[in-house]
Structure formats: structure tokens, C-alpha cells
């Protein structure tokens, strides 16, 4: 909790009888790039809107920089938001858009002019001062929206799926741009997205949310390699999620075959879920494999081949640079380190249970 810039305490919010956030607790460290990741309706945007001051939580507190700002209107908060569809002021020039917040704060004209120049340079759009927002492309408009927010020197920048409306190539460029901006400015970023790749690329910390609950908080590597439950494993990247039995420490029975693994402390003969990433499944000669199967599908994906292997009643998703034609009899081998064991949810409810850090 030390040097936490933002602290959300017991936030509860519902619209009508629909519960959006249920007792959410989260803190954000200074200088962190934190991403709220989840499917639509998981409460990530509502969390951001509560931070921005556009929604008031039914219960709970928002602590920002040591002060309770739960009931403060948006204009009194020392943070800025970059909205999903840019939300530029179409009746103003680019310069007027960027100057908006500074003029409200009665900054001097030379200060404002300097800031406009600086901000446009920062987002690589020098010389666009007198253009109108409508004459810019989507990516340029988004960069202006970012420039408009950061000239106010907020301690915290909230970004609500800012790249959602852009095409793939531009989105990838903007991801690098955002990382660069964050490092240059030393501002804390809270980023909302449903795109797991975006989250993995940019974040220091990812918060995976579902149905108003936090599923897992961790670094991108942590979330990807050690998902805590089937939802996280399924949502982040492709995966084979298989019901299995933990025979004893370091030994798991998957689809009737025993695999060595590295996890301990799950008990003996305990039902568990196992996650194996498709790139971690090794296809070997049948006699070398832990189990044997037949290749049923083969797709070329550019960097690798994607195959489906039918083995012991399960369709294994396999990604490999080595191609095995459909119909090949193969053996499946998995490195013990690459088998991730997760507790099985005991009920539907528990699937959405919060994780306490």
C-alpha cells in the first residue's frame, strides 16, 4: 500500500438492479501503467468513470493522492481522461482544443503557446495548430486527445479504450507511442481495454476483471504464465484448459495419463483445472509422447502452424513451427514447468470471486 497514488476502497456500484461492481478494492502505485482488462460488461469502464468523477459509487471511497475525492466533481480532480471516441471539440481548432484546460485555469498566453507547441511535438503532430479536428485521421485525432489531456500535467491519466476505433497497424504504432509517452512524462496511466494483446504489450500491471469482480492482478508474464483460474487462462491468449486430477505433489493425471509437473500443495487425488498453452505442447514421435493422438486440423498462421490433435478424447490446440500433416500419428509431451495447475471453482459463484492481494 506504500506510495499508492490511487486507492479504491470497497467500491460498489449498481445501475437499477444490475450489479456492476461488487466491493471492489484496488490500489495503483505512482508511475504505474495499469490496465483494467476484461470482456464488455465486466465493470472496467465503470471503474474508470468512477475515478474520473463521471459516476458516484453507491458505497466505498476513492482515495487519490491521500485525499478522499469520492464526491468531487470531475473539474476539481487533478487527473485527466482520454475518451474512447476522442471527444474533441469540433468547433475549435487543434490549438484551441489543447489550450482548453489551460485557459480555464487562466494560464498566461505565452505559457499556453509553449505548452501547445510542446504537446504537439510530443505526439508528433507539429504544425497542426490551426487545423480543425474533422480534417484529421482517427489516429491523429486520438493523439490530439492525448495531447489535450497531458498539457494539464495530471498526476493520473485515464484512458478508456483509446485505440479501439483504430485499425490494427495504427493500433500497434500507438501502443509503442503510449509506452514512450508514459516513460517520458512520468504520469501514472490507467488503461481500459478488452484487447488482451494490448494489455500484455503495454502494462506494468494487469487487472483482469469479470462480472464486477477482480479475477487476478499481476504482471503481464504472471497473468499469462500463471493464470489463477480458468477464466483468466481462457481470456488471455489461447489455451488448453483440461479437467484433471492432482495425484500427489508434482504429479497430475490428465485424460488418463500421468504428467510430471512442478506444483505442490494441492493435496492428493484432488480434482483441478490444468492450463497448457498451445505453444508449450510438444509433438514428438508416438513412442516418446506421454499420450498419443492424431492431427485433425492444420492451419498456417504465418509465424507458426496451428494444429488440433485428437488425443484421449480431447482436442489439443498446438502451435509449432514444425508442421505435421493431418492424419499424422503423434505423441504429446509437455515440459513439467509448462503445466499450470489451478483450483477448480467449487460453484458458479466462486468462478467470479474476488482475489485478495
Amino acid at each position: 500500500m506504500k506510495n499508492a497514488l490511487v486507492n479504491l476502497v470497497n467500491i460498489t456500484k449498481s445501475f437499477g438492479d444490475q450489479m456492476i461492481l461488487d466491493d471492489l478494492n484496488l490500489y495503483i502505485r505512482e508511475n504505474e501503467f495499469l490496465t483494467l482488462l476484461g470482456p464488455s460488461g465486466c465493470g472496467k469502464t465503470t471503474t474508470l468513470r468512477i475515478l474520473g468523477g463521471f459516476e458516484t459509487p453507491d458505497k466505498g471511497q476513492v482515495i487519490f493522492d491521500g485525499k478522499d475525492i469520492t464526491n468531487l466533481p470531475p473539474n476539481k480532480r487533478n487527473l485527466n481522461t482520454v475518451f474512447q471516441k476522442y471527444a474533441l471539440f469540433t468547433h475549435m481548432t487543434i490549438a484551441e482544443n489543447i489550450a482548453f484546460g489551460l485557459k480555464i485555469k487562466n494560464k498566461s498566453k505565452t505559457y499556453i503557446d509553449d505548452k501547445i507547441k510542446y504537446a504537439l511535438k510530443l505526439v508528433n503532430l507539429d504544425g497542426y495548430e490551426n487545423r480543425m479536428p474533422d480534417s484529421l485521421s482517427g489516429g491523429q485525432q486520438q493523439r490530439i486527445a492525448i495531447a489535450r489531456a497531458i498539457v494539464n500535467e495530471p498526476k493520473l491519466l485515464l484512458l478508456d479504450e483509446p485505440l479501439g476505433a483504430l485499425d490494427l497497424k495504427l493500433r500497434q504504432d500507438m501502443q509503442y507511442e503510449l509506452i514512450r509517452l508514459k516513460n517520458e512524462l512520468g504520469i501514472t496511466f490507467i488503461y481500459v481495454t478488452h484487447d488482451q494483446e494490448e494489455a500484455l504489450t503495454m502494462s506494468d500491471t494487469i487487472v483482469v476483471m469479470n462480472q464486477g469482480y477482480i479475477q487476478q492482478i499481476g504482471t503481464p508474464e504472471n497473468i499469462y504464465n500463471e493464470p489463477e483460474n480458468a477464466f483468466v487462462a481462457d481470456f488471455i491468449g489461447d489455451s488448453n484448459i483440461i479437467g484433471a486430477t492432482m495425484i500427489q505433489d508434482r504429479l497430475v493425471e490428465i485424460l488418463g495419463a500421468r504428467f510430471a509437473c512442478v506444483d505442490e500443495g494441492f493435496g492428493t487425488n484432488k480434482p483441478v483445472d490444468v492450463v497448457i498453452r498451445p505453444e508449450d505442447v510438444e509433438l514428438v514421435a508416438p513412442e516418446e509422447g506421454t499420450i498419443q493422438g492424431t492431427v485433425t486440423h492444420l492451419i498456417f498462421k504465418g509465424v507458426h502452424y496451428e494444429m488440433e490433435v485428437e488425443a484421449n478424447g480431447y482436442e489439443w490446440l498446438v502451435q509449432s513451427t514444425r508442421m505435421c500433416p493431418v492424419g499424422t500419428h503423434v505423441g504429446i509431451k509437455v515440459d513439467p514447468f509448462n503445466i499450470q495447475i489451478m483450483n477448480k471453482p467449487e460453484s458458479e459463484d466462486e468462478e467470479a470471486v474476488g482475489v485478495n492481494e
Partner: protein
Amino acid sequence: MNKKMLSAPFLFWSALFIIIPLCMVFYYGLTDKNGAFTLENVMAIATPEHSKALWEALKLSVISTIICLLLAYPLAMILCNLNVNQNSFIIMIFVLPMWMNFLLRTLAWQTLLEKTGVINSVLGFFHLPTLNIINTPSAIVLGMVYNFLPFMVLPLYNVLVKIDRNVINAARDLGANELQTFMKIIFPLSLPGMFSGITMVFVPALTTFVISKMLGGSKILLIGNIIEQEFTQTGNWNLGSGLSIVLMLFIIFNMVISTVTDKDGEVNAL
């Protein structure tokens, strides 16, 4: 070729009922009784009687337009913030009177406002001072505002409802309080709707002769009444046409000015 054919009925209609009548107005307006060219009918606007009527019409229609604007703007803003069910109900309440005959509605006001009319009977019953505004400019303004208010509300509502909530949120986010957000964001973005609302109220108010006739008695003559009289009573089509041309040019002049003022050219010209 086929697409051009589709416009034929419209072109025929325009020629028959817009272009030809307009030419006739110009012909009558620019000739005297013997058919010789003259500017006399147009210049007749300068006579005290006519210019007073134009001034009077201008005064009342400007007042009505301003009142409509002051009533419609807050209403349109409230409508935008209601949920869909509520606002469609309220919009219907505003549009509903438009489905009734215009003359009938104005006639109803005449009955209501009369010295021995409904309003005064009620006031008299409670021993309150009676209202004597029938046959005064106030009654005409009341009639104009009543009849033309929906034409101000609807275009304003249309632009206001299209303003992205996030644009307003962005202004708040950048430090603007509610008043600043209104002055710097909502109001400028609503200008196109305001201009078309003003046009749609000001033009019919300026040219009306029915409202002034029914609620103003015969005491108050607006330019519309003068023109009507030239056609229906005096029978001087030339003078009536001449004055019509003046009024038309006057309105066009005003439109041009408002279009120039409005950079984006988004005024829905009538």
C-alpha cells in the same frame, strides 16, 4: 437517365407552383396598372403607413423569436437529459397542437382572451383584476409564441441531443465547471440548431397576417396585413406584389447575414 426521370414530378411541381407564381409576383410588383415598368410599388414601402407596418411586424416577430428561444432552450436541454420514454412523451405534447388546424388554435386564443372570454370569467369569479390584452401587440406576440414554439424546440433538441456526452464530459474533465461547459461547448455546438430555429420562427412571424388579424383586431396592421388587404380588399395586386418583393428581399438579406455568421453553413435554409 432513370434517376433523372424520377425528379420529373418534382420539377413539374416546382415550375407550376413556385417558379411561375414567383415570376407573376415579380411581374405585378414591377409594373403599374397599365403594364408599364415601374419601381413605384417597391418604393411604396417608404411611405409612413407601410414602413410603420414593416417596423411593427419586425418588432413583434423579433420579440416573439426571442421569447421562443428563451423558452425553448432550457426545455430542449431538459428533454435531452430525460430517458427515451419520457422525452418522446413530452415531445409529443409539444407536437400534438401542430396536428390541429392553425386557424382553430388561434381562434381558441381569441375566445380565451376576449374581454368577456374564458380567462376573464375565471379571473372575475375570483375577484381578480381582468386581463385586457386582446387587440394589443401583447396578444399577437402570445399567438406567435404559442404557434411557433415547436419550430424552435425541435431543431434545438435535434442538435443538443446529438452532442456526444463524452464531449461534455471531456470539458468537465479538463476543469470546466457547468457554466463554462455550457458557454464554451454546448452553446457553440448548438448554434446551427439555434439558427434554423430562429429562421423557422422569425420568417412566419414576420409575414403572418392571420395571427395579427385574429388577436390584434383591426387596430394593429402588420406588413402581412397590408399585403393581404391589397390583394383581397383594395384589389391592387401591383402594390401587394411590390411590397411582397420587399419583404422577400428583406428575409433573404437576413438569411444571408446569418449564414455568413455561421461559419459551418449548417443553417437548414427554409
